[in-house]
């Protein structure tokens, strides 16, 4: 063996090491906010984005949510490609939207469509908290209203997964009016005998908690989700004292009579299915 071979071997070994290392790097890891454990994203995804060690819920993308609820390959998206024209000419709103599109890989803060749940056809809306904190502007209001009308027209149950920081500041009064718009459309749907299941996920606040999300025939929440009108910081400023632990979280709301039930993420599909059957929706 020549000396150059030794170097060659070492180079090969190093290359191999680098390659494997890169492979590990590709697998994104996320840290649990409660127990600080590090987990590969693929491991979390298989576990419904729940921490395997301490059971803390990570936020779930709209795409993962649909995968966890809808039967495989049954989801058909509605009103794709809809966008807001920046109705109050808010400076750099277009740039903010672009940035959020890239980050969330979604075109807006809600995705709507029809799908099947254990064979039962449903209208579904899932909010995406990674897109401008799931805030409601004109696109969110329109998609929620339109999918509710689809549900009404085709006699489908309506299921909405909420996750939102509230009304979107950047669209001003147009955002606020989406509360009136969605509430009006949901009310008519319910008056005509439609079933609306509202599922609160972390966090659901402000203009969304105070409009369509609160109007479900049945109100379901994931464990430990923040659900409120005014956020904890605003309230602490108003009353000048610290709020007790767990205030405005699912378990607290259940005790206050504001929810029907808290359901673990992995049990949601089955629970929804049982409710649908009891309302005479069949495959």
């Amino acid at each position, binding site marked *: 063996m020549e000396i150059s071979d030794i170097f060659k071997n070492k180079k090969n070994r190093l290359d191999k090491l680098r390659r494997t290392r890169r492979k590990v790097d590709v697998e994104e890891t996320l840290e649990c906010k409660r127990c600080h454990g590090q987990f590969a994203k693929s491991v979390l995804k298989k576990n419904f984005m729940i921490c395997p060690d301490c059971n803390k819920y990570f936020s779930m993308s709209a795409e993962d949510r649909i995968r966890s609820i809808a039967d495989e390959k049954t989801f058909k998206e509605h*009103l*794709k*490609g*809809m*966008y*807001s*024209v920046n*109705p*109050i000419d*808010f*400076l750099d709103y277009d740039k903010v939207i672009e940035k959020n599109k890239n980050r969330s890989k979604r075109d807006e803060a809600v995705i709507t469509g029809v799908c099947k749940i254990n064979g039962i056809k449903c209208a579904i809306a899932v909010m995406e908290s990674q897109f401008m904190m799931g805030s409601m502007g*004109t*696109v969110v*209001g*329109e998609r929620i*209203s339109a999918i509710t009308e689809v549900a009404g027209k085709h006699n489908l149950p309506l299921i909405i997964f909420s996750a939102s920081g509230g*009304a979107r*500041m*950047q*669209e*001003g*009064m*147009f*955002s*606020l*009016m989406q*509360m*009136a*718009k969605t*509430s*009006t*459309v*949901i*009310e*008519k749907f319910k*008056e005509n005998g439609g079933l609306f299941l509202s599922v609160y996920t972390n966090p659901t606040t*402000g*203009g969304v*908690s*105070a*409009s*369509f*999300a*609160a*109007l479900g025939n049945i109100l379901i929440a994931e464990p430990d989700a923040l*659900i*409120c*009108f*005014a956020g904890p910081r*605003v*309230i602490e400023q*108003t*009353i000048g004292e610290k*709020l007790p632990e767990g*205030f*405005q979280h699912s378990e607290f709301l259940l005790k*206050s*009579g*504001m929810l029907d039930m808290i359901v673990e993420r992995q049990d949601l599909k089955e629970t929804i299915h049982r409710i649908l059957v009891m309302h005479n929706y069949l495959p």
Partner: protein
Amino acid sequence: MKELTTYDRVLIARDKKRPQVSKYIEELFDDFIELKGDRLSGDDESILGGIAMFHGTPVTIIGQRKGKSLEESMRFNFGMCSPEGYRKGMRLMKEAERFHRPIITFIDTPGAYPGKEAEEHGQANAIAESMALMSSLKVPIIAIITGEGNSGGALALSVADKIWMLENSIFAVLSPEGFASILWKDGSLAPKASEVMKITAKELYDFGLIDDVIAEDRNMFKVIDKKLQKEISSLQKLSQNTLIENRYLKFRNIDEKKKALKVIKE
């Protein structure tokens, strides 16, 4: 005269000397009987409710009020309504429907109360339920923004067949101070925020989000009186189904005039 800035109007809208709901009742109606309580847990005095006579026709009044003196302001919680207030409103609206009374709401609030008890008692639910109820009531509803119309706290009483705003009132997703502190982390930028937010009666009228602007001059009450008479009588001519269908379409298509949405053709 110098044109008012939006923030000038914000300050005018908040002026304690401005007419409050009791003044409107005194000027516009012949008799008024106050009705109190939500029949669940309390009576929120930031919302005044009752039945009034309007040119021989009984109408239901629901109005937010901030109070004038410090003592009054404390009693009315500075116009920040609690779930009890919205539930009182809903109770009175259902009564109005039962007795075929048109409903007139007067809006003036810095926002729904962001307090501990308000949250415990379901502030978000109360606001949502109030809007949903109003969207389906079988009687004419007119909402008049008289001062500050901030956030869901104002919108909760504004799902009406017609929304009118006084010339110097504001109607906003939240207070300019709140907007500035959320987006720019600096509440003192409120004057700038108020311009950016587009919250004046004229701007919102041009957007098609409200139906009319009422000039604030000596004839104001007379003008409101005439407009109410005309509007109530034309709304009363509609069948119940048409009334509700029109209200549905109004809110369903609220962003139509501005064409706030577009779809990329695929």
